[in-house]
């Protein structure tokens, strides 16, 4: 392991140690702030309780990402190909980011119910902006000289998109996707906080109300691990797809 990885690990362990010590020394009630040892116990022993909820949240996030990609990629592409479309859609794009997502959540629950749909849509909405904007930026970042060169070869728009603009934009796309993957988690959880019957966000509210706060932290731990796993996976995908870097 590299030196920087050792240092990160040390910092994490130090924080955990201080936390554990402080909880014991100050006799902090476990339903205000549980000690790391409690959290670890809960994470392991309550795993069978947490797992089905984790699966539901994971499903919401993954479906949300796919839904967002399905919409964002074509829109960004059309916006790039037709500047008039870009001008027309730009304000909406910015608005989609400015609107606080938790204001949207209750509305989605009313319209779509307590099931998966509202959470999937929440996750999709929250990552729509980073993906679209990054992809569009990637397209635009292509050096003019290459575009001219393609024109000289007599390439039509479709060939230019496929052979030039899309590969050029891929690094930008993936950086947007990496951001999106971690933020999608937030969307799904907020959706669950507002109205759900399953999922890690739902579990967190219930556990908190029942004073099982170490379960809340265990749920957060699972969420973090899920987010991290997805980040790593996207990174792996990125290296595979952008094979020339």
């Amino acid at each position, binding site marked *: 392991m590299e030196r920087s990885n050792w240092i990160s690990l040390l910092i994490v362990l130090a924080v955990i140690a201080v936390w554990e010590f402080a909880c014991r020394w100050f006799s902090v009630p476990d339903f205000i702030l549980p000690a790391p040892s409690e959290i670890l116990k809960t994470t392991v022993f309550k795993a069978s309780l947490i797992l089905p909820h984790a699966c539901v949240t994971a499903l919401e996030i993954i479906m949300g990402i796919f839904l967002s990609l399905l919409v964002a990629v074509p829109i960004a592409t059309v916006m790039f190909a037709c500047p008039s479309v870009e001008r027309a859609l730009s304000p909406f794009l910015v608005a989609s980011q400015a609107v606080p997502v938790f204001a949207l959540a209750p509305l989605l629950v009313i319209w779509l119910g307590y099931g998966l749909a509202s959470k999937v849509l929440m996750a999709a909405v929250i990552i729509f902006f980073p993906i679209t904007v990054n992809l569009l930026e990637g397209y635009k970042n292509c050096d003019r*000289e*290459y575009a*001219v*060169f*393609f*024109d*000289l*070869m*007599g*390439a039509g728009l479709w*060939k230019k998109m496929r*052979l*030039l603009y899309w*590969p050029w934009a891929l690094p930008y796309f993936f950086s947007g996707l990496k951001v999106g993957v971690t933020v999608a988690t937030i969307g799904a959880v907020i959706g669950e906080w507002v109205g759900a019957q399953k999922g890690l966000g739902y579990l967190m509210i219930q556990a908190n109300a029942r004073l099982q706060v170490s379960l809340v932290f265990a749920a957060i731990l699972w969420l973090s691990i899920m987010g991290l796993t997805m980040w790593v996976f996207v990174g792996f995908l990125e290296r595979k797809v*952008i*094979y*020339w*870097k």
Partner: protein
Amino acid sequence: MLSVSDLTKKFEDLTVMEGFDLTVRRGGFTTLIGPSGCGKSTLFDILTGVFPRDGGMISWLGENVSDLMGRAAYMQQKDLLLPWFSLIDNAMLPVKIAGADKNGSLEKTISLFERLRLNGFEDYMPQKVSGGMRQRCALVRTLMFEHELVLLDEPLSSLDAITRRSLQGLLLLLQSEFNKTILMITHDIEEALLMSDELLVLTPMPMRIKERFVLEMPKPGRSGNPELLKIKEHVLEELEGDLDGTI
């Protein structure tokens, strides 16, 4: 042949050229040489259609055209190789885009790779090979264009002297072999003298052809030719004079 008549281009209050005329003999190697910023790159931009012209006509093989987009091969100082394609895929790009016969072209490309000593590197990615090899690959790509007319915009100026020399020779060889009509811009007077059938010296803006040299000595075999040395001196004087004038 390529003929440009009465070409005019103005940017705001700057007249780049006005009433510019140029004729390129079919099958010949014509070079344009001039001081920096005289407008020769703008001429190429107009010829290729990147910039619109304010007046004048372009005609290729007797036919009036708006520009040469899709009618000429083009090679620049930058190799413009795509990093996500191997050398051979890059070289075949004009074929892929024109949608032409793949198999025949593949053979041609491979033999060209061999001629330019790129054999064995076909599947390498551009980032992994030297600048000289990339420019050679770009040269192959230029030759894979089906077009007879080839526009070269300082194609060798980013290379070191040795690589330059070897590619100059190859360019000549390939021109005669593939019957291309070449119009080249360069800064390097010696290069121009070694390779051209016709050398046109340009003035600073507004750009005109100041002087025209027809070079009939056989090529290769021109280095050290005393007549060429005289022409070189002459051209240098002209260019320096213009330089003084513009400062």
